[in-house]
């Protein structure tokens, strides 16, 4: 990996983890625009249960059972961000592998 790409990753990850791991602890707990609209309209009229979300160690953006403590929120922010990053790096690798003909700067 070039130094350019490595620095993009390292600095980017540092910024993201600061936002997701620490900054998010200070997030407003008020309902968001959609939730508030549904409250205001009295729109709470679910029509079916919906498929249950798959089992997870997280209960919303916190560890199950630990509620909204700083660390529980931080783990959710860090794990979620890194999970998205990891998935995208894999997707990018697959997208690049499928075109062998041009610019072969693969190592």
């Amino acid at each position, binding site marked *: 990996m070039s130094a350019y790409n490595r620095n993009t990753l390292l600095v980017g990850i540092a910024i*993201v983890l600061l936002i997701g791991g620490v900054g998010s602890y200070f997030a407003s707990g008020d309902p968001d625009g959609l939730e508030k609209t549904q409250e205001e*309209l009295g729109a709470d009229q679910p029509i079916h249960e919906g498929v249950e979300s798959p089992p997870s160690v997280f209960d919303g953006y916190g560890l199950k059972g630990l509620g909204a403590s700083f660390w529980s929120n931080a783990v959710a922010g860090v794990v*979620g961000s890194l999970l998205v990053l990891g998935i995208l790096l894999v997707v990018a690798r697959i997208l690049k592998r499928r075109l062998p003909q041009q610019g072969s700067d693969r190592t």
Partner: protein
Amino acid sequence: MHIASKFLAPEVWGTMGAVSGLALGGALSMARRKMDDRNVPLMGVMGAFVFAAQMVNFPILAGTSGHLGGGFLLGVLLGPSLGIIVMTSVLVVQALVFQDGGVEALGANIFVMGVVPSLLGGAVRSLWRRPGWIAYAATFAGAVVGVLAGATLVILFLDWSGTLPQSVSLVQALGVMDSFHLFIGLVEGGITVAVVRFVLEARREAVFGAVPATSAAEGKA
């Protein structure tokens, strides 16, 4: 703005699942042709950033909060096809791991927060090749429009599903939803302009590819 599954009728989430599936398929096949080595880390980092930033709800008016959508931002910095792919990854992780947004509602949520704003963001992307006040203004305004478009679509999906209360007219519902999201959109616009500017200053080549030869060549480690 994540819709929970229980508010969407099967024909709605089914249709939107198909629409977003097609959009994602198109995005993947276009991205395959344009992938550049330097896109890769930026794509990953921007996805992680959108996930993290979405956790930071900021207060707007009276007991209401909002958070960044990010689809427009991704459209500007990565182009519409990578933007859709990145936003889909964020929404899938949110739905499957953090119970934010329903699993059946994924297609609708991808359309509202990914496909529409990423296409809009992609439309102003080329303005940033030569940044000036038009690029700033179009990006700010576009991000606001993206949020309002999303908010409007959500209400239309709820109306189509029959989950708006009968005491409220569609116009009233749109009025409430869009007025909250106007404020959220203004913040989205500000954050979007700031982040686009920051990333372009720090990593222009990762956004627009190689720059003329004079700029320092990167060391091949």
